[in-house]
């Protein structure tokens, strides 16, 4: 075995030891159950933005429809008033 191969073997050996050490020390840890359950509850209570968006959209559509209906009513009332005024003028005898 030449010097280069020996160096590579030593390096591999060191790496293997380091990996074993990391494997032994970097272990998953358990978060506090109280934290997990409190966060779960808070997430459930939090208003979901997807729902908020949906409600906002429904409100917007409703406002638009009501606006259009109000506009139609106003225009028809105005037209009716105009027609009545014109017909009133026609019926009024001139002296």
């Amino acid at each position, binding site marked *: 075995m030449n010097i280069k191969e020996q160096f590579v073997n030593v390096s591999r050996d*060191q*790496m293997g030891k*380091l*990996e074993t*050490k*990391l*494997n032994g*020390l*970097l*272990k*998953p*840890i*358990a*978060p*506090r159950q109280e*934290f*997990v359950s409190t*966060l*779960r509850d*808070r*997430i*459930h209570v*939090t208003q*979901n*933005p*997807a*729902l908020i*968006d*949906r409600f906002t959209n429904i409100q917007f559509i409703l406002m638009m429809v009501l606006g259009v209906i109000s506009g139609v009513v106003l225009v028809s009332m105005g037209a009716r008033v105009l027609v009545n005024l014109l017909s009133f003028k026609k019926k009024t005898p001139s002296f």
Partner: protein
Amino acid sequence: MPDSDENEILAKASQGDRDAFGYLYERYVERIFNYVYYRTGNVHDAEDITARVFYRALHHIHNYRDRGVPFSAWLYRIAHNLVANWHRDRSRKQEIPLTEVPTIRYKGDAPEQTLLYSEERENLLHLIHKLSPDRQNLLILKFVEHMSNAEIGQILGRSEGAVKSLYHRTLLSLRDEIGEEPVVE
């Protein structure tokens, strides 16, 4: 759980189904907490950041689109960004001494074994925290989360080969650091 099932749950969650989001929360909360804990070395901040990860996910899940990146990778990216902000903010403030960090329990270990690990773990964490964020992420995802190079690549936005190469360089760098400091044996 197969990916198709998770996609179905994701679709429901993005339409505002809280139970579906709750399911995703249960599935990923420990993994995200572990990732954040090992990046911060602090249980209190890990809990705070983990909570913010899930709030942010909840508020943006309707924007989540599966473009070949799994949901877990999306969550880890949120966590990574929040941890980066935390490090930036902390650099402006005073650091918390390690002695103030409460002792945490490893899953499945007896309390006395946890104490034995504690000092050695803190020394190693100290060395890991000297590495670049990408290298820290790599070690955490590999040793704590036991992810493959391909999965890590999806989270870090690198190819499998690039992850393999980064891993090798990280180990070399860590070995050199350990050689310089009288720790861990």
